């Protein structure tokens, strides 16, 4: 809530100097369900990705920015113009915020043609000005030939384009997109994303883009924000965020619940494998204990030399647990450890095992029942060679 004081004095000096960031948000809202949204961030122009599991509060956050929902307290401003400030009792009504908002279900007006949908927000303009703007947007979004159709007569991708055009035609001061491309084929998504990106380049405004899709994160984002249970847990470039995925949400985004820093210790070209010494979670201090040497994992062979630093990602669903030392297994990696905790998430059991590094494994409910596991018990973690996915820091190596 430091933003509510004089922003110029509280802003860290390291941040980019003068032009005020496009969007500043610092809001808190408790829903009737008890869910609490509490975030504080600033965005500049361009596409910013908001990622988070369902129920993380993404739509609530967007509604607070648009003014459809009133935060309990906080501050929202775009380009320095205050839209909401609980301390100063400012609350610009939703109808005067001039924010483009594409809803998750698009909310096209079913009784209006494509043309009328796009022109809907322009009733204050003269007819000629309105037509000129509508034509420009229909052209840019590639839907000019559909202008007389009703939303029911459009394909999914066409509808998404109409919704984007309707949001952009009012020349908004910023754009909120709630999973605008969900449910579309990848080629269609990429095409629409391209059109959106080129429009934003010509009219630089802050865009907050909610998505569940990894492809879209890498396709569109220069800045990634991860929301979990109403809290912003990390913000940065997609690569920076993914290189330290200590949270489940980020791991889910990366696709791996286990990510380790490792060094290539030996290469076995004739067998197509190599051995990597795991040194811990990224960002964690290497060698947690003085006597700890790390653990060795056999991984698939990639183009690397001895001593290369790598990152190993292992999906929690690819890991087997055993309560007795296994014999006669094809899997090459068997690590002894102790069970730290068991927790249930929907119908999946998340087991955390300490093998020198913490390893997360997913079990089914019946597997938990038949194994008789409790914290502290000795377990063996089994990982197939080909379940180890290798990254070179910064990019995927495979």
């Amino acid at each position, binding site marked *: 809530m430091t933003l509510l004081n004089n922003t110029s004095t509280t802003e860290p000096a390291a941040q980019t100097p003068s032009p005020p960031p496009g969007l500043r948000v610092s809001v808190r809202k408790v829903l009737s369900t008890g869910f609490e949204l509490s975030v504080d961030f600033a965005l500049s122009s361009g596409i910013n990705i908001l990622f988070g599991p369902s129920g993380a509060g993404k739509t609530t956050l967007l509604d607070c920015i*648009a003014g*459809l929902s009133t935060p309990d307290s906080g501050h929202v401003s775009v380009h320095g113009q205050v839209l909401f400030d609980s301390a100063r009792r400012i609350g610009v009504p*939703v*109808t*005067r*915020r*001039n*924010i*483009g*908002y594409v*809803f998750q*279900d698009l*909310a*096209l*007006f*079913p*009784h209006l043609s494509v043309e009328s949908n796009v022109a*809907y*927000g322009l*009733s*204050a303009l003269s007819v000629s000005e309105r037509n000129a703007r509508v034509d420009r947007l229909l052209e840019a979004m590639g839907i000019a030939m559909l202008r007389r159709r009703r939303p029911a007569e459009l394909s999914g991708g066409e509808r998404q384009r109409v919704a984007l055009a*309707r949001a952009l035609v*009012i020349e908004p001061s910023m754009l909120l997109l709630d999973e605008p491309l969900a449910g579309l084929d990848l080629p269609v998504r990429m095409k629409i994303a391209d059109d959106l990106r080129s429009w934003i380049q010509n009219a630089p405004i802050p865009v907050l883009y909610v998505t569940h899709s990894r492809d879209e994160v890498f396709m569109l984002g220069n800045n990634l924000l991860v929301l979990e249970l109403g809290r912003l847990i990390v913000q940065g470039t997609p690569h920076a965020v993914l290189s330290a995925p200590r949270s489940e949400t980020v791991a889910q985004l990366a696709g791996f619940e286990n990510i380790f820093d490792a060094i290539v210790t030996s290469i076995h070209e004739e067998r197509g494998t190599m051995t990597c010494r795991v040194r811990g979670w990224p960002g964690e201090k290497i060698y947690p204990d003085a006597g700890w040497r790390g653990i060795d994992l056999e991984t698939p062979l990639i183009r690397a030399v001895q001593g290369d630093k790598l990152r190993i990602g292992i999906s929690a669903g690819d890991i087997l647990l055993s309560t007795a030392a296994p014999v006669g297994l094809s899997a090459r990696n068997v690590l002894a450890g102790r069970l730290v905790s068991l927790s249930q998430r929907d119908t999946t059991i998340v087991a955390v095992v300490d093998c020198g590094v913490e390893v997360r494994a997913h079990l089914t409910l019946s597997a938990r029942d038949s194994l008789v596991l409790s914290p502290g018990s000795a377990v063996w973690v089994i990982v197939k060679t080909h379940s180890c996915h290798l990254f070179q820091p910064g990019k995927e190596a495979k």
Partner: protein
Amino acid sequence: MDWQAFWLTIQLATVVTGILVVIGFPLAYWLAFSTWRWRFLVEAVVALPIVLPPTVLGFYLLVALGQRSPVGRWWQGLTGHPLAFTFEGLVIGSVLYSLPFAVQPLASSLSSIDRRLLDASAVLGLSKLRTFFRVLVPLSLSGLITGVSLTFAHTMGEFGVVLMVGGNIPGITRTLSIDIYDQVQDLNYSAANTTALVLVAIAFVLLSVVYSLNRRFWSLWPRT
């Protein structure tokens, strides 16, 4: 066929339908969008005329409009004649009696409209009033036509309230349904038959309109 009664009935139904569109739309809007916890009480009150005997409604109206009530006295002071046994009194009774037939289809239509459309309209800068005319009215058109048809048909055919509040004054309160009753009392069956047939025909046409637009109008309450 008593044409005076026929035109009086048409006139009554038209006026009542007009009034109920004006009253019914805001009431239906409130019922469809209110989150007030006691909203169901208002729903129940609006639906009362469906189940109450017309004589009950007529009786209370007679008391409320009579010379002993403040409303009746106020009206008499204003116009010089009492409200009971007049066309105006008939209109008030019919409006109350047909209220659920106008409000229910409208509320049902309105509540089936996606709320995000209203949000979309607000984000695009349109006030609630303009959103009402540009989104809610067009999207609840079938509910509006259903409500208008049902109100009209129901008002044309009502008997009990009219008899209680209006009596049987030719040209003022004598509607077609009263006329049929009179004819039968006089054992004039063929005249009663003609009039009855006219009412059946009108009701059939109006209900055909309703059902051609909307196949489930009896499951009308929103959010059931």
